[in-house]
């Protein structure tokens, strides 16, 4: 970890967003993770995405559980709301927070341990409810905080620093999410911000559950030869299928795209994402096509990245339940609390 603080000076020509803030205004405290941790790059990508989306810091809620990944919300947007839940319970706590206040933008940062083992039940139910949040899994295949044991996402044959290679079938968050019908599913790599930042922007803007699974190498316990989640291995085998350009509301799509490979999708609030299909045959709106493609590529040892699936037609949690737009905290007491008489009437309905 680093003991000296990042100087409070910045490049005098740093770009400012529509709120007049620079990306540095969206920073948090200096990371206490190992130098070179992929999570720190993900943090930098989140800062860039939130900055570019002009999100007001106090309108952002940072949610996490336990693990190296779950420490990272401390390292971005200091002025935002935050909740560090118990292990694996980030999704449930976010569900509660979102139920009470749907106006905030929710970003959850979790890891392969926090989401695919102890928190697997929470994770799948958040998908089922189509909870309106950006759910980031910083996926490194090991429990870094407890010195590098394999996690549930470790690939068969991946070698640890010491001991035998993993023999168990990995749990793949993307396949689970696809099977459960999550509405925005992406995979990326901490070392590829060009791809990652627009994916996070899309996920933050998407209405519904947005999963971004990010290969984020553990530089201390899982970055050696024989590891399938190292920087070198990821770079060698990873494969873009659908990249994304994020287009803010009221901006025209300017870039020129190859015919047949570009697809524009309108998101909540008028912004758009343009999908750039690197693989022309890939259809990111078809669960069946996506599932088969992903399995095939996985069996071939490739790591498929990009926006893998999107469904804009399903309603998110509040809309599904017909709830009001106003956050509970902004409702007057008599609205929130109808009184004894009303309660009695309701209870009488069940007698």
């Amino acid at each position, binding site marked *: *970890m*680093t*003991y*000296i*603080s*990042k*100087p*409070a*000076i*910045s*490049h*005098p*020509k*740093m770009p400012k967003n529509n709120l007049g803030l620079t990306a*540095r205004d969206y920073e948090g405290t*200096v990371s206490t993770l*190992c*130098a*070179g*941790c*992929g999570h*720190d*790059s993900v*943090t*930098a990508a989140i800062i860039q995405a939130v900055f570019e989306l002009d999100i007001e810091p106090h309108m952002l809620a940072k949610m996490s559980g336990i693990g190296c990944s779950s420490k990272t919300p401390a390292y971005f947007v200091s002025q935002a709301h935050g909740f560090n839940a118990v292990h694996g319970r980030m999704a449930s706590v976010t569900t509660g927070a979102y139920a009470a206040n749907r106006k905030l933008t929710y970003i959850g940062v979790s890891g392969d341990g926090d989401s695919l083992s102890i928190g697997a039940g929470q994770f799948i139910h958040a998908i089922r409810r189509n909870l309106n949040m950006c759910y980031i899994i910083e996926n490194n295949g090991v429990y870094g905080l407890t010195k590098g044991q394999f996690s549930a996402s470790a690939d068969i044959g991946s070698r640890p620093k010491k001991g035998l290679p993993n023999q168990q079938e990995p749990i793949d968050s993307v396949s689970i999410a696809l099977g459960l019908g999550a509405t925005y599913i992406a995979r990326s790599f*901490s*070392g*590829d*911000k060009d791809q990652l930042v627009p994916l996070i922007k899309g996920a933050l803007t998407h209405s519904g559950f947005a999963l971004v699974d990010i290969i984020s*190498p553990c*530089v201390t316990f899982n*970055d050696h030869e024989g590891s399938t989640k190292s*920087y*070198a291995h990821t*770079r060698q085998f*990873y494969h873009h299928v659908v990249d994304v350009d994020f287009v803010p509301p009221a901006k025209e799509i300017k870039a020129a795209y190859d015919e047949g490979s570009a697809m524009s999708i309108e998101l909540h609030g008028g912004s758009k994402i343009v999908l750039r299909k690197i693989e022309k045959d890939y259809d990111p709106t078809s669960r069946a096509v996506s599932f088969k493609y992903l399995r095939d590529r996985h069996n071939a040892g490739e790591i498929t990245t990009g926006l893998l699936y999107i469904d804009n037609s399903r309603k998110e949690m509040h809309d599904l339940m017909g709830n009001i737009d106003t956050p509970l905290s902004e409702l007057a007491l008599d609205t929130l609390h109808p009184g004894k008489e009303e309660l009695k009437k309701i209870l009488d309905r069940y007698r």
Partner: protein
Amino acid sequence: MRRHTDNGRHDSEMKRTDTSNPDYFHKVVDCQWACPAHTDVPQYIRLIAQGRFDDAYILNRESNVFPGILGRVCDRPCESACRRVRIEDKPVAICRLKRVAADHRGDISDRLPKGADQSNGKKVALLGAGCASLTVANDLRPLGYEVTIFEAMNTAGGLMRTNIPQFRLPPEVLDEEIAYVIDMGVVLKLNHKINSMKALLDDGFDAVFVGTGAPRGKNLEIPGRYDSDNIVIGIEWLESVAFDHVDSIGKRVLIIGVGNTAMDCCRTSLRIGAENVKVIARKPRAFFKASAWELEDAEEEFVEILVNHSPKNFIIEDGKLVGMTFELMEYKVDDDGSIDRGTLIGEKIIPCDDVILAIGQENAFPWVERDIGIEFDEWECPIIDKTTMMCSRDGIFFGGDSAFGPKNIIWAVAHGHEAAISIHKYCQGESLSDRLPMGINLVSQKMGMHEWSFSNDYDPTSRRLMPHVDLKERFKKLDIEVELGFTAEQAISEVERCLNCDIQTVFVAKLCIECDACIDICPVNCLTITEIGDEADLRTRLSAPAENLDQALYVSDDLPQTGRVMVKDEDLCVHCSLCAERCPTGAWDMQKSTVLIPYASDEAAGGQALSMTQDSAVS
């Protein structure tokens, strides 16, 4: 990943940075690069921070010979180059920290270079006992040269003595640092004006160095100029004051011109009787020649500076100067900063008792015969080789203001060092152009996992203000030094403002795993990993705009995993070491660079001794 392939390369592709070229890292140390004598600024500031004033003084003296003098009156090219200006508005007070080293040093006499006991049989004549000649003597005496300085006046120091008032540069300081050189066994012949170069050459010297300065003040030929004794030329007047030939002046004084000599004239006037002093400038403030701090010091003493006044004539009544007429001008200034010839918009009479002309100096060589092989240019200046400092006649060298016209002390010192090398090579029959190159030495500053040997934490403190003698007190005598020097507390605070630009960020491409940690942590967005391209293109693809074309881009070799390159814009790096701190593989390291500058002694030792001095490594 988008792998970079060889067949995609173009000829215009930017060259990979060759950090073994000493100039590359030297240029990153902007203050040292800007200093004509290449004083190792960050290192002496660090030594001051450690309380090692003797070491700081000696390190300074190696390159600039007169730390006590320059710590008061240097033109400070280092400060305008200081990197801190790019981050906030004020540079580190480099110059005044030099004075701290000089003020607080102990007895350093046993650490000064010594004149050789034995002569090497070569005789060198130095003309003028100013900073240029003294530097040459300083460099040649230890090698055994018999050095004779001829000085026209009755005291040594040249313009430092005659033109810089005592309230800026106390005579004791001057005497002491001149004595360090003279005591090396230099023969100093005072009151010895050379009236003929030809005659001097007949005296059997092996080499001659001319360091006679630019002794002639420019005149202003307008009506009335010669009708009063109360119209004088600035540098001549300052000299008369310095030698006590003049000790009073009228109540109302006009100074014509707005350079540093004008500032010395107006402030001197206030100390010998003037009550109302106006400095008259022909152009607007942005075109003043005086240094900003000298203007500030004069204005602190309530000197009024009038702009856009062009002198027309002197007004003489009954043989007495009573005023001057000025034409009032208006100028147009372009966006690129160039100014037109101006339009006349009126006239104004300003009454006065005395006028001092301070509109520049020029060289004058009436004593150099024109038929002895020394070629002069159209402005009657000798033609001098910029590297060797030799004129068109072999064995005669020039330096200081007499070489290329008025500059300043630190340039004269730089010329002196170069001339000393040339004189040595000339006397030894070696080629003058075959000079030792500069070198660079790099030493890692990593002490432990998260420990660096230097103060790398950015200190946001603002520049300390120099304390001055009270306004009433300072006018009582001519020789009360106005600046008091930094207090210990101020010095401690000011040294921490230095960004340690000599502690270089050194990158080893083959160790990089492209985790982006350095890019993410850099507070000023210096770093980018990207595809190679030509420089203009690369500058548009960096983490932050890289618009200062004078500052180099560092471009690494191909990175092992993707074939991309690491690019660093050196412009705004604050040398905080966070890139090295966050690098998991040690691809980035912080290494102290020491620029190895050859002097005459290194040439004499055949370059063998050109290695680090004992103070050069951070300890």
